């Protein structure tokens, strides 16, 4: 258990920067999630921490020790792979024992430690099985036990849940998170699944094109996205292009006049969260912005309903409304009013 410091890591492949000036500070016992689309540099960053990739520039410190040029086998990092990567020719017990044998732990101690680690993941009864005789979820837990048994300084998870089916994934998320908290393990997880990231993380790092876009808690990213990319990647947003002609007044390309909080003039994009917009009756006066438009598409999601409304020839917004019996759902082709207050839209200069 230790603090991880990544200082200005860059990894270049020819002209391509797989990681570009990445700096992160993961506190002791913190669960940090690297989130981004494929090719954003999150896996490169994780593999640099694990020691499989040597950075072109920058340094990695684990528990105060510089590990930048140490090979993987000298780093004391527990790693869980997307494919689980269990040794197919070894039993569960032998898989879990591997890390202990490499550390020359006496055989007598190995036995008790294996039992302890398998009990943590509730698999103590399957020690004699081979990996291929286990389900995906069980294999995943063996991989976790194998990575934890030697008390690593840090736990690294590379898309650990992607190969599990949706139902199981939800359980394992909670399970991993509780285990990590119980053991107080510093953990870095890589994922492209934002829901997974939001449920598990203490703090999240959104990456794209090798760079960090934003670091923060769930609320930071959702309520105050740093740029258009984050607003789009975390949660959903409808974007309207245009410019701020006078402080606090945004004019869209389709001619909508939108009241907003940004004062600097110039070209800009406004991002609107579907659940923060409201369908309103014609008499409601309380909104800073009020537009009417035609319903072009309705998608019924059960608890929620998405309504796509054309506000101008260039602009269409999505409004998410709760599905309540007392409130009739808008129909296709119907004209409705949409309203939101001035602090609802996030404005980014473009």
């Amino acid at each position, binding site marked *: 258990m230790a603090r991880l410091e990544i200082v200005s890591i860059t990894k270049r492949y020819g002209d391509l920067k797989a990681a570009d000036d990445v700096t992160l500070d993961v506190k002791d016992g913190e669960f940090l999630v690297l989130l981004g689309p494929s090719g954003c540099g999150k896996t490169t960053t994780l593999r640099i921490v694990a020691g499989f990739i040597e950075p072109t520039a920058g340094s990695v410190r684990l528990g105060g020790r510089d590990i930048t040029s140490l090979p993987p086998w000298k780093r004391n990092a527990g790693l869980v792979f997307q494919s689980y*990567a269990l040794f197919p020719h070894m039993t569960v017990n032998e898989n879990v024992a591997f890390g202990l044998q490499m550390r020359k732990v006496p055989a007598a101690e190995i036995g008790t430690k294996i039992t302890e680690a398998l009990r943590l993941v509730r698999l103590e009864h399957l020690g004699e099985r081979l990996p291929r005789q286990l389900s995906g979820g069980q294999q995943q837990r063996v991989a976790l036990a194998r990575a934890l048994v030697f008390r690593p300084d840090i736990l690294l998870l590379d898309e650990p849940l992607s190969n599990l089916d949706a139902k199981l994934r939800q359980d394992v998320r909670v399970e991993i998170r509780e285990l990590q908290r119980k053991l107080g393990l510093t953990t870095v997880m890589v994922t492209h699944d934002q829901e997974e990231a939001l449920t598990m993380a203490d703090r999240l790092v959104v990456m794209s094109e090798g760079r960090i876009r934003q670091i923060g808690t769930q609320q930071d990213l959702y309520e105050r996205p740093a740029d258009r990319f984050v607003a789009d990647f975390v949660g959903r947003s409808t974007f309207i292009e245009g410019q701020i002609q006078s402080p606090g007044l945004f004019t869209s390309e389709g001619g909508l006049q939108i009241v907003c909080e940004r004062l600097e003039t110039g070209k800009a994009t406004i991002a609107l969260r579907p659940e923060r917009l409201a369908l309103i009756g014609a008499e409601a006066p309380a909104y800073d912005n009020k537009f009417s438009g035609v319903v072009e598409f309705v998608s019924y999601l059960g608890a929620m309903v998405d309504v796509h409304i054309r506000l101008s020839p260039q602009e269409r917004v999505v409004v998410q409304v709760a599905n309540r019996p007392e409130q009739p759902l808008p129909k296709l082709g119907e004209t409705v009013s949409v309203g939101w207050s001035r602090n609802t839209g996030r404005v980014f200069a473009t």
Partner: protein
Amino acid sequence: MTTGGTTLAHAAGWRNSRTLGRLALKATAGLTMAYILTPLFFVTWLAFFAQEIPSFPPEGYSLRWFAAIPGNDRFVSGFVLSLQVAIVATLIGLAIGVPAAVCLVRSRVPGREAISSVLLLPLVVPGIVLGIALYVFHVEAEIRTELPVLGSLGGLVAGHVLIVIPWTVRLVTASLAGMDRSVEEAAQSLGANRLTTFRRVTLPGILPGIVAAALFGFVSSFGNLEMSLFLVGPGRTTLPIAILQYLEWKIDPTIAAVSVVQIVLIGGAMLLTDRFVKISRVV
């Protein structure tokens, strides 16, 4: 006729044409099997014929041709030499081919496509060409170095190593490529250095490939005739050469009996290895 047949098939509907397709597949497979197995079948049958000149129908059956094998010095010493050469050549071929395959797959060697093509070349070049080339090389080598290269046991084994290497490189490369790389990375993250990772994780993973390579290398060395013809020295005869020489004078079923013994030995070796390592997964 064809048009009529097609119309009929159409009329019968897709269900019938599917059964027809399945039948055609089975028939083709059966014919191919028959094509491969017929010579083996006749050789085996012939080996039990009683008469000296093979002709149909057999005049009776006998085991005397098998009984005659141990008494024939040329066959016995040929068998022993072929066995020795094949075993040594296979071991050397593995020692060269396995590391070569690991390098080709796991590291970024410049020109690795070219290197792997060169290593597969002995499989493509006709054996007789290989034999002549090696013969000329041995002659030159003997003149230059004044060492007894021509017709030496070492020269023969070296030649056979050449035909074992393509098998090892090919089969080990295939099984390495099919192996999940992250399993090796997992071992390293758990504290195993490169050598330990290779020994404890990579090697067990590619073992079926290595066993298959050993088997195929052994069989192609053991049965090699064309190349060996140029490499053997006086008094040193491999089994295939002994068979050829015998055939020049006699055509009695002894040869068939020797062949049957070979088929049984090699088939037995294959079945035995398949019990421990599933070769079918690699080849």
